[in-house]
């Protein structure tokens, strides 16, 4: 056990000793400095471990041999140990990272670094207010020294703004401290009385000045222009200290002062925190300078923690957990990002494409970014979860909204940035070789981030039950990323299969159905992966993360597990989608809609805990006053995944641009996650009423319009994959409608549509993907006549569209028949008519697809096209086999599903008599129809064959023409703008109204951002005015007058 | 009582000097005025029974810091004349 005072001694001693060294021994001096930092890290870490394992006890450290309040004392408790550990970590690794740079600049920079870290350590530990002031000044001055590391115009201006701002803040802090001393006779924090005195002016004002100046040091909006300029102006390696170390220390100071806060100040604090969180993330929208952007994010994150501190009294014993989770993530992630930024050294985020030349750094960048945004398994995920849950539990809806909105805005620019890095035109230059001392800090931060994620989940009463094995397996694929596709694909299939096998005994009802779609479906689509050659780096980890999420949804017992899995699935699918060629904007909008949806789900799960114990999914069945709100939120969340009308604009691009075997994964499989969510929700919650109207009634209409618009849009596409994507929207609209019916047959129909959609959409995407694979184009009008070249693909498309269109005798008809009966039963006649109208519109695109691609005139350049690869065809034919079986024996599929539904919705179940199904209104025998149709067909066909024995095959252009013969397939193939007349008639429905709406929302957000950020006009003086104004406003807010 | 009068006079001079320091066009004069504020402050400290502070303020506030101000100003002026 080393007394923490030795942290000061070591850092100071070494700093003074550095004076002995000349420029020649600078390397040794630098190493010594790092040694001192390592020593401090060791001491604080030792204390942290000791205190956590309760081998040490929290200790007061007295100086001057006199007891406080007569001397300055430091305190080392768990909090102090943790925070000094964080600070010293940043100090050591930040120093290591900057080592070469600092050596070049001379020993003074090492002195500044050491003093900064020492100052912050004392700031965290001290219990004396004036001591706090002195060491804050030390860290400010040291920071001001470090800011000008590069000694250029920008860093000078930024540094000056920093000095004058912190100067005035420090002065105000000093006034507060001296008056506090005057009123209490002591400088010790522990001697300050608490209670109602705080609201009395005078004493209260003194506390107010102290608290406000600490708050100001944390750069609250709008008095934070100086901080932003510093982030932009200085070297990224220095920003790490400002963002991660100083911010951390000051937050701890604020935490120390919690007992002194009056409720009104605490409220002001949380308001400022919330405002900062939202505003800085909003302003980040327009920002293109990476460091300034990170600065916005950093300020926002700290604002969030400030908000949490302000709400501390309401968060109860969860407060520390939440704050540490959020702050820990901020520290490691922001440090990592700034460090990466220091390596890249580009002043526009669009130029960051160079990052992707370095795989490791790119992965790390992704890790930090996901951590910042609160994705699992990082600590902030659990922090945000707890925060939202607690806020909801207290009925703080508006806080919840603020936090979620702010997080969302942050996601916008961070994911945009990630998209730029992954997808923008690559820079030609290679990245400079990176020395180990720059790598190491980044890697260690990432490792710590992940480790602390697991740690936080272990500490959480519910999260410790989360099954991490699938995620770990997925992560393991990163390690074997260099192996060839064949091996990885086999392993992936094996692991998904194994998981399904292990899960199988526990599966029942809908979980069985959806687990089969997710995992068995996953295996089938993964089979197509064998068609790829080379390594296909990055694909398997992401695919498996998605499957881990999907499987996790099935396994989830609690809302936390469910949300965890939901987020995992979102990440995995995002990375799969962004692999596509032109998917940069589509992946972004996918992510944003998904996140928006996820936040809605999070809010709903939070609200569900009100008046409920535990977080088991079953609490949804036993709800409180918020039930309708929860229902709506969950529905919105799930509908972002099913891409219901209004929330669908991400889908076409995302699915169309994805790779051949990714499209079926994200379309046929992933969308079902939303359906699964809806089913789980509806099973638990039943229908809910709002203003006396059933919500599911609205969902029903929404489903109808989704189906119509989706199908209509599909019919008007030129791009084959986009057509299929819109078709998915339409079909999922049916499914939503079926669920909204809330009747046995409706659900049966919806489920059977979910299953058949999985099958035919997988087949279609793979078949069309195979065509695109060979033809290198997705435009249908550039195809044509491929039936002769790719007959197997043709057959699979043919059967699939027959199923899709619901034409008897194939199984698609089952869905239509069930729907009709359900509609009759429910009395939703108009909706029923419209939904069948949508079904007819589906014929349009079905025909267009098969005609434009496979029929008509073969293009000259496609005369040598080969059939799609075997491995792409194989999954299609597996599925087709199953489809035919289901068609002939519908009860093999529908009967068990009906039995699953009966416990929840017993009325109106089908009556089965062999393959004959009876409903209240009609009847249907799939098997006999199959026999009859096949019988008639074969008979007629035989007749044709018999009569046309000597038929002669003609050449391609041997067609009936009145005038001269056409000779160009391009002019003869009628495919472009195939439904021009239809567009003319009903095109008004196909206007991109929804896209325009969302674009408008985005535009408004960005222009508001641009307007507001003008307050940071760059003048240091203006920033001073902001600070004074901020103090005045907060004062008025806290005291309600002077 | 005499202390009070001295203090009031000192205060008036200091405020005046502060005004000069802020508003005088010549930086040199402004700096000297600011130094004078410090100097008078140290007298006030003596009245307030704070000889230590007075000593410090006199040597640092009105001494060294004015010197530093002048060095910088000089440097800037020199730069101006050279270029």
């Amino acid at each position, binding site marked *: 056990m080393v007394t923490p005072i030795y942290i000061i001694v070591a850092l100071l001693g070494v700093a003074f000793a550095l004076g002995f060294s000349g420029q020649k021994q600078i390397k040794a001096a630098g190493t010594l400095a790092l040694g001192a930092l390592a020593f401090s890290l060791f001491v604080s870490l030792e204390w942290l471990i000791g205190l956590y394992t309760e081998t040490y006890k929290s200790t007061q450290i007295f100086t001057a041999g006199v007891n406080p309040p007569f001397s300055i004392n430091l305190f080392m408790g768990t909090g102090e140990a943790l925070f000094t550990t964080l600070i010293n970590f940043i100090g050591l690794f930040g120093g290591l990272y900057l080592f070469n740079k600092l050596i070049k600049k001379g020993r003074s920079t090492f002195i500044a670094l050491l003093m900064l870290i020492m100052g912050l350590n004392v700031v965290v530990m001290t219990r004396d207010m*004036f001591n706090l002031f002195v060491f804050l*000044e030390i860290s400010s*001055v040291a920071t001001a*020294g470090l800011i*000008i590391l590069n*000694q250029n*115009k*920008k860093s*000078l201006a930024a*540094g*000056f703004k920093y*000095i*004058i701002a912190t*100067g*005035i803040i420090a*002065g105000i802090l*000093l*006034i507060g401290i*001296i*008056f506090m*001393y005057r009123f209490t006779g002591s400088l010790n924090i522990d001697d300050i009385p608490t209670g109602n005195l705080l609201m009395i002016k005078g004493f209260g004002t003194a506390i107010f000045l102290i608290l406000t100046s600490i708050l100001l040091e944390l750069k609250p909006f709008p008095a934070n222009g100086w901080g932003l*300029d510093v982030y932009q102006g200085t070297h990224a390696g220095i920003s790490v200290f400002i963002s991660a170390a100083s911010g951390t220390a000051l937050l701890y100071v604020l935490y120390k002062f919690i007992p002194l806060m009056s409720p009104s100040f605490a409220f002001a604090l949380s308001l400022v925190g919330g405002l900062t969180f939202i505003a800085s993330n909003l302003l980040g929208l327009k*920002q293109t300078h990476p460091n300034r952007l990170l600065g916005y994010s950093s300020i926002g994150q700290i604002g969030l923690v400030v908000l949490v501190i302000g709400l501390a009294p309401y968060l109860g014993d969860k407060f520390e957990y939440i704050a540490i989770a959020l702050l820990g993530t901020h520290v490691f992630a922001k440090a990592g990002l700034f460090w990466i930024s220091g390596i890249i050294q580009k002043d526009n985020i669009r130029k960051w494409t160079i990052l992707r030349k370095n795989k490791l750094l790119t992965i790390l960048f992704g890790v930090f970014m996901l951590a910042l945004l609160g994705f699992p398994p990082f600590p902030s995920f659990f922090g945000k979860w707890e925060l939202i849950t607690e806020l909801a539990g207290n009925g703080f809806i508006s806080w919840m909204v603020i936090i979620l909105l702010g997080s969302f805005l942050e996601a916008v620019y961070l994911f945009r940035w990630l998209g730029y890095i992954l997808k923008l035109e690559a820079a030609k230059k290679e990245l400079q070789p990176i020395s180990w001392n720059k790598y190491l800090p980044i890697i260690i931060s990432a490792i710590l981030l992940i480790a602390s994620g697991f740690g936080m989940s272990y500490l959480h009463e519910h999260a410790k039950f989360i099954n991490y094995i699938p995620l770990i397996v997925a992560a393991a694929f990163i390690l074997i990323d260099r192996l060839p596709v064949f091996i990885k694909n086999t392993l992936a299939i094996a692991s998904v299969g194994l998981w399904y096998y292990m899960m199988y005994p526990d599966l029942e009802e809908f979980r069985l159905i959806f687990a089969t779609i997710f995992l068995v479906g996953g295996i089938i689509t993964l089979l197509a992966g064998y068609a790829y050659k080379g390594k296909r780096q990055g694909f398997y980890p992401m695919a498996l993360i998605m499957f881990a999420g999907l499987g996790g949804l099935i396994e989830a017992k609690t809302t936390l597990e469910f949300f965890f899995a939901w987020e995992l699935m979102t990440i995995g699918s995002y990375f799969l989608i962004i692999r596509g060629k032109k998917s940069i904007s589509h992946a972004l909008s996918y992510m944003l809609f998904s996140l928006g949806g996820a936040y809605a789900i999070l809010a709903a799960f939070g609200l569900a805990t009100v008046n409920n114990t535990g977080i088991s999914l079953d609490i949804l069945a036993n709800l409180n006053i918020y039930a309708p709100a929860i229902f709506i939120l969950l529905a919105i969340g799930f509908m972002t995944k099913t891409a219901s009308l209004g929330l669908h604009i991400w889908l076409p691009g995302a699915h169309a641009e994805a790779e051949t075997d990714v499209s079926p994964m994200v379309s046929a499989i992933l969308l079902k996650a939303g359906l699964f969510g809806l089913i789980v929700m509806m099973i638990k919650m039943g229908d809910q009423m709002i203003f006396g109207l059933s919500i599911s009634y609205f969902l029903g209409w929404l489903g109808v319009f989704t189906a119509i618009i989706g199908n209509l849009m599909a019919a008007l596409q030129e791009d084959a994959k986009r057509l299929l994507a819109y078709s998915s929207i339409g079909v999922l609209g049916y499914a939503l409608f079926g669920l909204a019916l809330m009747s046995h047959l409706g659900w049966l129909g919806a489920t059977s549509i979910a299953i058949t959609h999985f099958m035919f959409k997988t087949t279609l995407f793979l078949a069309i993907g195979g065509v695109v694979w060979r033809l290198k184009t997705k435009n249908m009008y550039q195809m044509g006549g491929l039936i002769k070249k790719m007959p197997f693909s043709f057959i699979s498309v043919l059967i699939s569209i027959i199923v899709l269109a619901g034409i008897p005798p194939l199984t698609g008809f089952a869905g239509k028949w069930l729907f009709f009966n359900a509609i009759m039963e429910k009395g939703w006649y108009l909706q029923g008519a419209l939904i069948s109208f949508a079904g007819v519109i589906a014929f349009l695109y079905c025909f267009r697809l098969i005609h434009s691609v496979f029929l008509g005139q073969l293009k000259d350049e496609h005369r040598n096209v080969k059939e799609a690869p075997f491995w792409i065809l194989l999954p299609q034919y597996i599925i087709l086999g199953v489809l035919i079986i289901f068609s002939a024996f519908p009860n093999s599929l529908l009967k068990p599903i009906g039995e699953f539904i009966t416990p929840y919705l017993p009325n109106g179940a089908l009556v089965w008599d062999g393959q004959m199904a009876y409903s209240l209104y009609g009847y249907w025998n799939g098997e006999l129809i199959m026999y009859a149709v096949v019988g008639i067909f074969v008979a007629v066909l035989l007749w044709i064959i018999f009569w046309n024995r000597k038929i002669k095959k003609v050449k391609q252009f041997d067609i009936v023409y009145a005038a001269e013969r056409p000779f160009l397939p391009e002019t003869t193939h009628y495919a472009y703008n195939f439904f021009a007349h239809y567009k003319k008639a009903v095109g008004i429905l196909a206007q991109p109204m929804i896209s325009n709406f969302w674009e408008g929302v985005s535009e408004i957000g960005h222009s508001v951002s641009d307007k507001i950020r003008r307050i*940071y*006009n*760059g*003048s*240091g003086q203006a920033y*001073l*005015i902001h600070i004074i104004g901020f103090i005045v406003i907060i004062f008025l807010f806290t005291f309600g007058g002077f | 009582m005499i202390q009070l009068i001295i*203090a009031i006079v000192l*205060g008036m001079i200091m*405020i005046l000097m*502060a*005004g000069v*320091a*802020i508003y005088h066009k010549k*930086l040199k004069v*402004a*700096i000297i005025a*600011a130094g004078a*504020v410090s100097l008078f*402050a140290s007298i*006030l*400290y003596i*009245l*307030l*029974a*704070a000889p*230590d*502070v007075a000593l*410090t303020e006199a040597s*640092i*506030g009105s001494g060294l*810091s004015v010197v*530093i*101000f002048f060095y910088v100003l000089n*440097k*800037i002026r020199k*730069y101006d004349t050279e270029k």
Partner: protein
Amino acid sequence: MIFSLVNISLIIGILLVLAGIWAAITQKNIIKIIIGFSLFDTGIHIIMVALGYVKNNTAPILDSENLRTGTADKIVDPIPQALVLTAIVIGLGVTALMLVYALKMYREKKSLNINSFKDLKW
């Protein structure tokens, strides 16, 4: 009594603080802004010392007289004075740093106007 030594000192201090802030937020010349800061600092120091003053008590240096008569507590409060000592030195450090910044900034832009340094914004 309003017109006590302490109160007058406090008024002077507050006025200096305000004058300093006023200079910092209205003057465009960087040197003037720095002067404003030093006025601000001086004002705070005066306030601090004044707050430690106890009427009719002596400077906090105990001589044998005090000890003998048992009037050791008839001194003014030494703590604010000690704090001011520290604060003055800190102020000097910060002022010097600001001045050197000003010097360097002048070299970059040939200007002492604070509005010439608006490259970083938004």
